[in-house]
């Protein structure tokens, strides 16, 4: 066993000890939610139906509608007596059961959503501040289909920023060391919320529209001493987000501002190249920037989407591959600590322990990076990290129930996933040794791709050109511009009468 692995195990066990010292259920709200999750973990079909139901619930307005849908989703006898009885009961008093259901599911969502609005969220943030946990706030919203909506979003971000700055005046850094790297006010921004016409084929257009919307927010953040992070979403937006980040923070006005961050998703095969590209860019720019390393939350979406289109899958198929890549990228981040401030977004104790052990090995002080965990999840782990003297920040989504559902479903998927860490630890009680194993060892050599991979689809139909890829776009652009040139010149020639 290597020294690093020994250290990881030592750290991991320490975290588990601290976690077990404060026994707390995996999910802060017991009861209804606990039971549903337990059921979901046992029965994949029930899980699928449940998540679909959760997804549709906010758009149902009448109690009778809720009960009708409940009936349609769960009336199948295969779901066992418990569910069956529930459905039958609901039919008897639809008014009451509709409300109860909505209340329960709202409760589920509230567990992951830190507040309905900026006022609401402050109570949560204050509580966490007292526990020495920082925050980054994210605004949840409906899918942005128009510029009117996008403008509204931009205004909400600005309001939120003002509010957070006002309300946190006088808050001090929990570690009191290297605090200049970690402003108290931290806002996470989604670019898909700020422009409705993003086309992977046209990054230049997206950047031209996004930059003017972001500049006022960045300017204000700088004045207020706040931090802005560009979140990552699906692969289709990844390159645009990276390019936007580099473009805007190379501008004269923001070139020397260190409080901007971006995300790298370790489940992406591109992630190492992207990270190295960012580091190189940062060195040329000459100012620190921040980077949140995560595993990535759109695995199901990316896999389905690429299979459907016959594209090569942008994500690793096996969970341990992503975990191993997370560790490799952690090393890249620490090796470039002089230019990039790292945040590690994971609930996986092995990944966390690895980060700690590697930081020690490379001589990086624990006050120079931070761990970021999601609101409503893995509370005991956060507490353990604080106790060990690490910097912890919570990712706090704010918003109404309706737009919060997609977020909720992503969290539910994560919590019930067969391969999820929290499930393994808290629901299946795997041993510490098992949970702290080196992820490389867990990668199955023959599990490189699922049986139904993109190649099957590709044989049936020619895939669309993946415009999100720079290379594909370049091919198109080359042909278009060559043709444009010949057309323009021959048309011009004709106009001046030189054409035969």
């Amino acid at each position, binding site marked *: 066993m290597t020294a690093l692995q020994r250290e990881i195990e030592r750290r991991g066990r320490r975290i588990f000890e601290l976690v077990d010292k404060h026994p707390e259920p995996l999910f802060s709200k017991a009861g209804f939610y606990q039971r549903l999750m337990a059921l979901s973990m046992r029965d994949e079909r029930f899980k699928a139906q449940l998540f*679909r139901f959760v*997804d*549709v619930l906010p*758009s*149902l*307005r009448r109690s009778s*509608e809720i009960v*009708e*849908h409940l009936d*349609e*989703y769960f009336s199948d006898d295969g779901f066992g007596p418990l569910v069956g009885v529930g459905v039958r009961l609901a039919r008897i008093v639809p008014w009451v059961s509709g409300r109860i259901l909505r209340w329960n599911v709202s409760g589920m969502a509230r567990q992951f959503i830190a507040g309905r609005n900026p006022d609401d969220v402050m109570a949560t943030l204050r509580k966490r501040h007292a526990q020495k946990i920082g925050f980054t706030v994210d605004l949840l919203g*409906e*899918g942005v*289909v*128009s*510029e*009117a*909506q*996008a403008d509204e979003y931009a205004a909400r971000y600005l309001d939120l920023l003002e509010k957070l700055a006002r309300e946190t005046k006088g808050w001090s850094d929990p570690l009191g060391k290297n605090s200049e790297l970690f402003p108290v006010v931290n806002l996470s921004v989604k670019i898909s919320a700020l422009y*409705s*016409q993003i*086309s992977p*084929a*046209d990054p230049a*257009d*997206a950047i031209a529209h996004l930059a003017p919307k972001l500049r006022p927010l960045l300017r204000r953040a700088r004045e207020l001493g706040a931090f802005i992070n560009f979140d990552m979403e699906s692969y289709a937006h990844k390159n645009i987000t990276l390019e936007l980040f580099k473009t805007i923070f190379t501008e004269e006005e923001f070139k020397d501002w260190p409080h901007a961050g971006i995300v790298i998703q370790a489940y992406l095969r591109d992630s190492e190249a992207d990270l190295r590209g960012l580091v190189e860019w940062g060195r040329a720019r000459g100012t620190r920037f921040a980077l949140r390393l995560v595993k990535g939350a759109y695995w199901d979406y990316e896999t389905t989407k690429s299979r459907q289109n016959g594209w090569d899958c942008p994500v690793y198929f096996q969970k341990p591959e992503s975990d191993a890549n997370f560790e490799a990228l952690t090393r890249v981040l620490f090796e470039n600590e002089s230019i990039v401030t790292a945040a590690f977004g994971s609930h996986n104790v092995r990944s966390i322990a690895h980060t700690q052990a590697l930081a020690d090995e490379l001589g990086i002080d624990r006050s120079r990076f931070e761990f970021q965990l999601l609101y409503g999840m893995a509370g005991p782990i956060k507490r353990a990290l604080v106790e060990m003297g690490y910097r912890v920040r919570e990712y706090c989504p704010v918003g109404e129930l309706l737009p919060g559902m997609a977020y909720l479903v992503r969290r539910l998927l994560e919590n019930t996933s067969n391969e999820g860490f929290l499930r393994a630890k808290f629901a299946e009680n795997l041993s510490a040794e098992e949970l702290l194993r080196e992820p490389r060892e867990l990668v199955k050599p023959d599990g490189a791709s699922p049986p139904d991979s993109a190649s099957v689809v590709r044989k*049936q*139909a*020619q*895939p*669309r*050109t993946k*415009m999100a890829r720079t290379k594909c*776009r370049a*091919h*198109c*652009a*080359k*042909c*278009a511009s*060559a*043709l*444009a040139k010949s*057309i*323009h010149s*021959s*048309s011009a020639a*004709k*106009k001046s009468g030189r054409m035969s």
Partner: protein
Amino acid sequence: MNPSAPDEIVGYGSEAGIPEAEHVVKAARAAFGKWSLTPFEERACLLERAADILERRRFELSAVEVFEVGKPWNEADADIREAIDFCRFYAQQMRRLGPPKLTQQVPGEESYHHYWPRGVAFVIAPWNFPMAILCGMASAAVVTGNTVIMKPSEQSIICGAMLMQVFEEAGVPPGVLNFLSGRGSVIGVHLVDHKDVDLIAFTGSREVGLRIWQSAGVTRPGQRQLKHVICEMGGKNAMIVDADADLGEAIGYSIYSAFGYQGQKCSALSRLILLEENYDRVMERLIPAAASLRVGNPEEPGIMVGPVIDEAAYRRILDYIEIGKKEATLAYQAKEVPPHGYFIPPTIFTDVKPNMRIAREEIFGPVLSVLKVRDLDEALEVANGTYYALTRGLFSHSPDNIERVKAQLEAGNVYINRSCTGAIVGRHPFGGFKMSGGGTKAGGEDYLLQFLIPRVVTENTSRLGLVPEETPEYRDEFLWPKHQ
């Protein structure tokens, strides 16, 4: 001519007249004997070679579409992809249909069912999918052993000529595939009526389709057989938005289906049917979503709404918008479109009733009618209440409503919780019924049968009660031993 900049010439095409048409029919007729006796395997390989060439030249060809017919990048790319798929899919289908198949196992007798080509096929294609549809119809006709006269639309001659080039490079023998550009009213009419044309494959407007259907029914002196007509015509496509639909998704897909490629797809959405209950909620987001669309020259990547095809289309669509203004309420019209080129501002009408012209007639442009209904029953009635039956769909998260609508929507292609455009060969065989077409399915397993005549050959194999032990399920093709 470039519809985004009408003073730009993309290329020059020649206009064939009657003498050229006559010449081409003779060439096709002359080549038929040999081509019909070419083994199907060879014909399938020809298509696959064409597919490989299309794949190689994919970016170059899609660039041509951007300039000749004003296709946005993504759409042009999809058109070439579809052309490739047609070639490969029909090659594969021909291999399936090619070998004569034993009908039943009976001692002492063998009966083989197989297919013969029909003869000379006349393919008339539209400009809106200038490679895919032309290639689909022509490759189906060629692979089944017919010889073909291929007439691209007058608005997309360059794309048609490039497709011809691809097939020549793939090694199509002389006379088997003949390119003929010219006016539908001259050579189109002449060839539809021609005694030596055995099959007409048409995709285009209902008006022209019905005329072809009628003329093809008239027997001309010297005609050998009944003409077979494949007609794929327009649509007046509808989407229903249920009370529980995910509105972000419903609006996103509806906007794309209605305004993608300026609404110039036969599958494009032209009627959005909203339940009273969520009418206001949808409209509140639909109009700003339409207002956010990027209208412009598709030379720029990422543009979703470009110009309409030509001046005639431009005028016709503007006329419909005027009719709409009289009949219904103009709820939205884009203010700014590029001043030159045939750009029509995306337009939305509300207070549309099913009997209005804008709710019944195919406009083939970026014009969307919104109809308000009481409930799902009325929604179905309105959705089904036109002459057409091409694409229709529903946005809903109610399993029961989805089941019901799946069963009851009158349309060749029914789409649930997705856009109603963008059919993929083999996966979504495409084509409608009622006045949208004769029920044929491009990219479907039964499509090639339209180009073939079924034939059965039966032999009594018993001699004095002695019979061969077993009859194989398939046998070799019925080919002449030597080419004539």
